[in-house]
């Protein structure tokens, strides 16, 4: 596995950093993460199809777009694997695309688990 898709951090989201960026508004962060999860879900399916068809330009485009959203929410791992997908698309490297796709699915599940256990906006009580 190439170095840049090997996660080396402990948490999938850097809450401190993202909250600083959006002015500490946890309710807003919850809304953004909800949008992200829906978006990522759709894009993941599209990437799967694109990988099966070996549509490299679409892989590159979706990887790029997901990279941006992930960076915005300080989702460090997801940002990294999205970047790998973008690179795989650019280099027309199907092996890298498959590896990155598998990593993306895993990281996405990790994120969802993490968010369930550590919601951005914990309920009072």
């Amino acid at each position, binding site marked *: 596995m190439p170095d840049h898709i090997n996660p080396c951090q402990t948490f999938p989201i850097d809450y401190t950093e993202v909250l600083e960026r*959006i002015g500490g508004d946890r309710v807003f962060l919850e809304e*953004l993460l909800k949008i992200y999860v829906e978006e990522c879900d759709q894009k993941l399916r599209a990437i799967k199809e694109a990988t099966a068809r070996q549509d490299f330009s679409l892989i590159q485009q979706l990887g790029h777009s997901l990279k941006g*959203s992930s960076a915005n929410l300080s989702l460090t791992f997801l940002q990294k694997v999205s970047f790998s997908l973008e690179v795989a698309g650019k280099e027309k490297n199907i092996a890298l695309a498959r590896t990155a796709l598998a990593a993306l699915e895993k990281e996405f599940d990790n994120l969802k688990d993490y968010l369930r256990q550590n919601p951005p906006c914990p309920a009072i009580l």
Partner: protein
Amino acid sequence: MKILIAEDDLITSRILEKHLQSWGFEAVLARNGEQAWQALKDSRLRLAILDWMMPGMDGIEICKKIRRRKKYKYTYIILLSAKDRKQDIIAGLSSGADDYMAKPVNFLELRARLQTGKRIIDLEDKLLYVQNQLKDLASRDSLTKLWNRSEIAKFLREELDRAQREKKPLGVIMLDIDYFKKINDSFGHKIGDLALLQVVSRIKRKVRKSDKVGRYGGDEIIVVLPNCGLLEIRKIGERLRASIARRGVKTGQETFRVTISAGCASSENRSQASAEKLIKAADAALLRAKNQGRNCVVVDDDATENTREVKNA
């Protein structure tokens, strides 16, 4: 102030929107280049934040298209991009963007940069305001604030064209103050000016909304009346005359009687009316009103010779 956010990424778009709203902007969202271009047809959108990379038309293309358009006021554009190499920044600015910001956006910086944009737009607004004022100043007579001779002549030509297209009559009334020279001689020019102003203000109140009043020269006043035939113009002319003669003019210490004479002409009874001919006919009718003893209205109601004259004094 309205501001466009053209950004295909939902998260970025939502974060931008939230910030802009908290700074008092009204955000308009577009998710691709085509939507952005459509939104920019709203002339109230003077500030735009454009993402470089968008599906379809990209930010660069929109910049170029905005700069090519003519009738719009200035649109201040901030281009956003993940590309932050020197050559990208240069390419972005060269396409017509005013400013360039690398993603991820620092929002304090964005806010400061938007202030720059607002300053530019405010400057343009001030400039346009002054330009309008100057235009107005150049089209009006400085004493009476009526349209000046060239402006009212232009209006007359345009309205005559329209009247002929729409097959409607157009009227012209020329009027002046009786014995204006005597007023000036006996009370002084200052009082003469004040009397003229009072006459003008009464006339402006008595004409219809669609009519335009201009100062033709000296105390000669011209009224251009769209959609006005001979019957109507006689009534209006008489209404103007009566409004002046009804009560005296007060000019500080002095109150004295002022009357006007009026000559009216309409395109209704002319097959080939021109602006010049109408003015000439109204002028000739005014002259006849003077010869008939003043304080009266004469309508030039025949294109050839016979002019019916009405004396109201």
